[in-house]
């Protein structure tokens, strides 16, 4: 019952549609950028003798992977953090939380319903970004095998060739892996939202915190600090696009992220259970 009610409220909140529209706009921008980049890179003469560049670099799967990569880094975590932050503080601000808690319903169940629904929303949004990118790539560029070359996009440090069937399977595996990574900013947002009654403040703080951690994890001078930040592990799913994925590494990075998600989730649950509503 509570899940249905929360689902209805989520749909009416329009947040999923806003997120989907942003993803669509992002993909269109990526497509334009992709065309310009491909034109520049493959139109010029090779300057060096020792190079791996070739003319079949850019295709639909490459487009899908790169657009997913950038969308994952810069768009989806923001929506994850926002969604988490909108939950408890949003309900508290509108007075709905007080009404919900007046029903014969444990706080843990209400919390679980909210977490499961927002987690599902992130799963769907991740799938939308990946699926729409692949569809757009297929229509606009055409699929082929997936060839990745080292370069400014920093996806790989060596040439990677994956046949189309293997590449599609890796995309499929990357979907839940990326969703797991996004569950960390989501639960962080949840935790922050249990502290106050203003969804705006909670959302601002959650997004700012994510961005700060992301920037710090990208600066190599913080070498000793970086391994302890969840943002350093978030793109671990890229390892799935190696010819022979290092499963041990992938499992360890996934465990770190799951640990962070559980930690933030537990802290959020604890705070929510002890919170006084007025």
């Amino acid at each position, binding site marked *: 019952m509570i899940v249905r009610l929360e689902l209805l409220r989520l749909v009416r909140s329009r947040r999923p549609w806003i997120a989907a529209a942003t993803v669509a706009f992002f993909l269109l921008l990526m497509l334009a950028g992709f065309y310009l980049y491909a034109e520049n890179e493959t139109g010029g003469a090779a300057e060096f003798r*020792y190079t*791996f560049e070739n003319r079949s670099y850019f295709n639909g799967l490459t487009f899908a992977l790169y657009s997913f990569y950038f969308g994952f880094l810069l768009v989806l975590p923001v929506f994850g953090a926002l969604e988490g932050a909108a939950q408890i503080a949003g309900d508290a601000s509108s007075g709905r939380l007080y009404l919900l808690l007046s029903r014969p319903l444990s706080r843990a169940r209400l919390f679980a319903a909210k977490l499961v629904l927002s987690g599902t929303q992130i799963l769907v949004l991740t799938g939308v970004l990946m699926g729409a990118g692949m569809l757009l790539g297929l229509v606009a560029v055409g699929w082929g095998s997936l060839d990745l070359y*080292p370069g*400014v996009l920093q996806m790989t440090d060596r040439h990677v060739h994956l046949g189309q069937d293997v590449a599609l399977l890796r995309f499929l595996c990357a979907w839940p892996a990326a969703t797991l990574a996004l569950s960390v900013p989501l639960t962080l947002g949840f935790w922050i939202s249990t502290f106050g009654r203003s969804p705006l403040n909670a959302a601002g703080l959650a997004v700012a915190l994510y961005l700060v951690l992301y920037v710090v994890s990208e600066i190599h001078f913080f070498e000793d600090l970086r391994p302890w930040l969840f943002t350093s592990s978030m793109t671990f799913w890229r390892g799935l696009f190696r010819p022979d994925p290092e499963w041990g590494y992938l499992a360890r990075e996934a465990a770190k992220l799951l640990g962070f998600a559980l930690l933030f989730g*537990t802290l959020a649950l604890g705070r929510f259970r002890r919170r006084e509503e007025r």
Partner: protein
Amino acid sequence: MRRGSLLEGLLFALALACFAYGYGWGRGDGRPPLPGERLEDGLRVMTWNVGRATAKGPRPLADEDLAHVASVLEELRPDLCFLEEVRSARQATELARDLGGGWSAEVSRGRMGRLVAALSRGGELRVEGRAPRGALAVSLRSAAGFRVRATGVHADAFSAERRNELLGAATDALLASSGDAALCILAGDFNLDLDLDKRRDLFSDDAYRDVETYNYVAGLLRDAARGSGATAEPDRRLDYVFVGAGAPIRAAGPLRGLREGEMDHDPLVVDLGPPR
């Protein structure tokens, strides 16, 4: 209330278990082991840029550092060592002389102050052919009895194009002339830092080309010290030892705490087993 607290405790314990697995608490850090005691049946290769990074710019090996370099070589006892930024042939000769019997030295052609020197301990060191400028090609017979072809390089610090040309040409020449050698080695200061997680805006005019250069070499030879960490200030992996197939890599990595004065590189040491 008690059930809720139990749930929280359970979730918290699960998070701890995930962290324990993810961060490998109780396990090593996954890096290759650092070279320790030298083993007689294999080959110890070392590369070290012994120049200085001073406030007035880079400076080659100073005469007052010769004794320190000799003491490090004495301690580590490499079968083959390439030194970069050697000022002159005289310094290499003096090093070999200070190290005593069995050591021999050769130096590359090229600009004074940017010479590459090869030192070998009892390995019948011989210069082979004409190496590209900035490189030194040598051959030797190891103490364990197998023949080795090796090239030491010092690539340009400021031009990706010149790095690309030197490393590509040195790799091609090494492999083309390997002949009856059981093992091929390319070592030196490549001046490439390819860590994917780093911002590469220091000391590089074209990181994209550097990645391609690295991959050209890595496609033909093995990067023996891959994953072993930075070799130079500030947190850059610039020094490499690439080896041909056949010889197992027993240990590899930069050895800290051996710099003197304003030196900015650590010696990179690789222990190889006998080629199969």
